[in-house]
């Protein structure tokens, strides 16, 4: 059987190593030249009891050609236990006692292949996963069109490692490698590349290389036994990508590396002040490990100190950043206002998660948009941009740094759980290919006459910092005199300064690319999205044969936005919130009609649901 795209979902207990298996399989396919898009789906609990529904951890990946999303529903499921089988079959309805397989809610479609560990379907396993009968397949109402592949994963793994001298517990931990090998057989993938990946993965624990490799190869060979009943799947064609070096990269890592690249490009030292928060913490982890690149990371005492240490570093002349998620952005609001008022470059990365309050810390949502735009006291404009794929988190992190340092302003970069934890194919750029960055450094000619209110013709003030002789000044969060830069409470001056700060953000529109329409530009219908939904909306626009405008620049909007929007009769703004971008667009373009399509379930869009909505 050959296919253009295939969606595979690995599903098991939190301790079954599903994230590792999924990551290895995705990397292997990326190495083989396939496009990938991944969706790790962690359980919300810290560590639910083993074998229970609350402890199911999933990892979904779509591979092949023209891959825009991790896929709505899986073609292949690997279910490591009874709970995983139930969660995959019932989707979000797994807690309903009467629920059956349903095309809408199941995580796989009705012609999928479902590989199940039959050793993990004992009475005890079924009880833990809240089954009421001893036949899980009948109880779940799995249609006959689904191809169930029963494999005694546990027994086979034990046999594989019987002579390894390993203890039982360690042997059981290797079950995922047997499943990995089996999936490699299913996709007819070369074992030598997979072995190489394993060697790399366990580089620091060499004792684990041999047993894991053996289990994986045994899993692969076991696949031959299935050949009578299961057809292998071959991925067709070659990805339509630019020539170059490629790797697979997760969004948070791409974000961190974008900051590193920007610092080097601008000739600045990178400083990150941050406080741990899901799902943003990996950015801090990545940067803390990059002391070789002269990156300075302060793990602050709280979110406020995270942004304030960064503001201090910016005042002192560094490229300063802070990384957080929604609750942290709330805490940082006042300090971001300080950076707006003091007109200092600052990059604020908000990896959005389900809110409000603590909300759904491990799930994805686009609900911080209005907070990013307006969530500060006073008239407090800042640049707001959003990444739209795990790989382009790199480009927009770089862009955030460029815009901050060239325009002396905070820039809020919005990503989200889906982008942050997902991986995608990334073409590795050379530093020389990246756009130049020209920080707004004060010219030497202003020595002795400098004050913090002086602006260039575009309205951007100059950056002078401690250590520079003849540029001493007092920066403030109080209103400053437009001429002298000192404290001022003059009414006309305050208004003048509010307009100057507003104008400074508006003129950024001259320094960003214009909006580009994708898909069938001649259609009457335009889908509109922003940030991480690009893949899903692109796929939906293809199916609907309509146009798509995906926004990466939100404040300010690209200059041609009105012109593009006014070309279409029907505009549907699709967001993972209740209509924040639509609200913003209506305020900018009150004469244009915007329809909305919204989901707030903590999950990425399903292409099918968008298509159905827009069709009807």
């Amino acid at each position: 059987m050959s296919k253009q795209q295939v969606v595979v979902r690995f599903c098991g207990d939190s301790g079954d190593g599903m994230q590792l298996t999924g990551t290895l399989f995705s990397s292997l396919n990326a190495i083989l030249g396939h496009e990938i898009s991944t969706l790790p789906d962690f359980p919300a609990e810290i560590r639910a009891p083993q074998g229970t529904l609350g402890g199911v951890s999933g990892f979904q990946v779509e591979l092949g050609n023209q891959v825009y999303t991790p896929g709505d529903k899986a073609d292949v499921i690997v279910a490591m236990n009874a709970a995983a089988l139930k969660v995959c079959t019932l989707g979000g309805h797994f807690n309903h006692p009467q629920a059956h397989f349903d095309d809408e809610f199941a995580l796989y479609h009705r012609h999928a292949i479902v590989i199940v560990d039959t050793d993990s379907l004992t009475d005890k396993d079924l009880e833990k996963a809240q089954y009421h009968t001893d036949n899980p397949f009948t109880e779940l109402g799995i249609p006959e069109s689904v191809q169930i592949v029963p494999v005694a994963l546990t027994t086979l793994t034990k046999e594989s490692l019987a002579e390894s001298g390993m203890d039982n517990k360690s042997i059981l931990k290797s079950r995922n490698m047997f499943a990995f090998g089996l999936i490699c057989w299913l996709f007819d993938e070369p074992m030598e590349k997979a072995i190489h990946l394993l060697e790399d993965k366990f580089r620091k624990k060499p004792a684990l290389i041999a047993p894991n490799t053996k289990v994986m190869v045994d899993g692969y060979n076991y696949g031959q036994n299935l050949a009578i009943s299961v057809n292998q799947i071959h991925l067709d064609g070659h990805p339509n990508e630019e020539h170059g070096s490629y790797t697979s990269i997760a969004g948070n890592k791409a974000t961190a590396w974008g900051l590193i690249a920007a610092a080097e490009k601008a000739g600045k030292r990178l400083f990150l002040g941050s406080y741990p928060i899901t799902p943003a913490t990996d950015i801090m982890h990545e940067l803390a490990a990059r002391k070789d690149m002269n990156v300075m990371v302060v793990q602050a005492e709280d979110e406020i100190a995270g942004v304030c240490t960064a503001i201090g570093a910016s005042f002192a002349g560094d490229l300063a950043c802070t990384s957080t998620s929604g609750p942290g952005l709330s805490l940082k609001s006042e300090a971001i206002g300080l950076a707006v008022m003091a007109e200092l470059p600052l990059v604020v990365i908000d990896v959005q998660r389900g809110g409000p309050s603590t909300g759904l810390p491990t799930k994805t949502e686009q609900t911080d948009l209005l907070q990013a735009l307006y969530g500060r006291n006073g008239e407090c404009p800042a640049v707001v941009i959003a990444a739209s794929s795990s790989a382009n988190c790199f480009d927009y992190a770089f862009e955030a740094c460029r815009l901050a340092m060239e325009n002396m302003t905070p820039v809020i970069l919005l990503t989200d759980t889906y982008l942050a934890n997902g991986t995608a194919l990334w073409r590795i750029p050379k530093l020389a290919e990246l756009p130049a960055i020209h920080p707004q450094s004060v010219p030497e000619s202003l020595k002795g006459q400098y004050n913090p209110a002086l602006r260039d013709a575009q309205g951007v003030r100059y950056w002078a910092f401690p250590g520079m002789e003849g540029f001493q000044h007092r920066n403030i969060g109080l209103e400053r005199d437009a001429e002298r830069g000192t404290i001022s409470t003059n009414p006309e001056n305050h208004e003048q300064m509010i307009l100057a700060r507003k104008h400074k953000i508006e003129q950024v529109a001259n320094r960003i690319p214009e909006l580009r329409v994708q898909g069938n530009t001649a259609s009457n219908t335009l889908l509109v999205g922003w940030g991480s939904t690009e893949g899903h909306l692109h796929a939906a626009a293809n199916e609907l044969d309509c146009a798509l405008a995906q926004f990466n620049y939100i404040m300010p909007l690209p200059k041609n936005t009105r012109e593009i929007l006014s070309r279409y009769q029907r505009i549907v703004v699709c967001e993972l919130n209740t209509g924040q971008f639509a609200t913003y667009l209506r305020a900018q373009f009150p004469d244009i009609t915007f329809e909305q399509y919204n989901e707030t379930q903590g999950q990425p869009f399903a292409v099918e649901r968008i298509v159905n909505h827009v069709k009807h």
Partner: protein
Amino acid sequence: MEASEYKSDQYVRFCPGCGDHAICMALQKAMAQIGIPPHQIAVISGIGCSSRMPHYLNTYGFNTIHGRGGAVATGVKTSHPELTVWQMSGDGDCLAIGGNHFIHEIRRNVNLNVCMFNNRIYGLTKGQYSPTSPKGFVSKSSPFGTVERPFIPAELVLGARGTFFARTLDVDMPTTVECLVAAHQHKGASIVECLVNCVIFNNGTHAWIADREQRAEHAIILKHGEKMIFGTNKDKGLAVEIDPQTFVPKIIVVPADDPRVLTHDAHQQDPTLHRLLALMGQDRYLEVKANDEGTTGECLPVALGVIRDVEAETYDEAVNRQIQEVRASSKTRTFDQLTATLEQWQM
């Protein structure tokens, strides 16, 4: 350098008679004595009367937001340890809204010089009680008297494992300058509690020691290596006594010629004695006493001067040293070298 070289062109807007005027002048004098040129100094503040200080100094300055001066200063100093960084703060800015940053800059031992102006009141917001107002203190926000227990700043500093603590008084210029210079010389978070009078909302809060007639009896200026002697006639000394039942040590007043009179050792790592010294006379600030005048001169004097000054590695040094160590042992210096370390393939 001259003190005038550290003066900005701004008109000083503290209330006439405010203690902050004196600290401002002392700062300019201390900076001149230290001799670091103005462009290599950054003065960071939060919000409050004291936080206006950067405007009056011809250095780099940043008047930030309420309570966050410590965090901003930490960012400045850590990213640029070559700069001399001062933080100006008050009892509200430092101990209430900015309390978390205050204890953490001390815990990390960031090499900052912190002036904590303590007037036991919120002045800029026009007269509310502060974390150092004595219990029972009547203010606009406590018309029936506060019911809160106050902080003793020294105790908080030592509790956060502080390496430097000095206390000074607005009306004692020489001690103030001396403490500020010592704060600069100390590597690490140097906290100087500046007792200042708020002439409008809390006039006379430090009168017990500020009053020239009584000061010699009610305060002692501690100097490292010198005997702890005080009194109008220099006839009193301080000694330690340990209660034989409870083993609790306490400071006692003895005649100046008593062999038990202590010699001040600010460099002692063990903070036990520093704490006892710093707490002397502080009980009178814990609660409003009905009849203050009844107190006799036999009570313990308030300690001024440098009480604690011990060595420990500073955060900014450690962070920068670690970066240098990693860089020395790594060949990866550029973005292109970094990406070369990735598992990758050609298309």
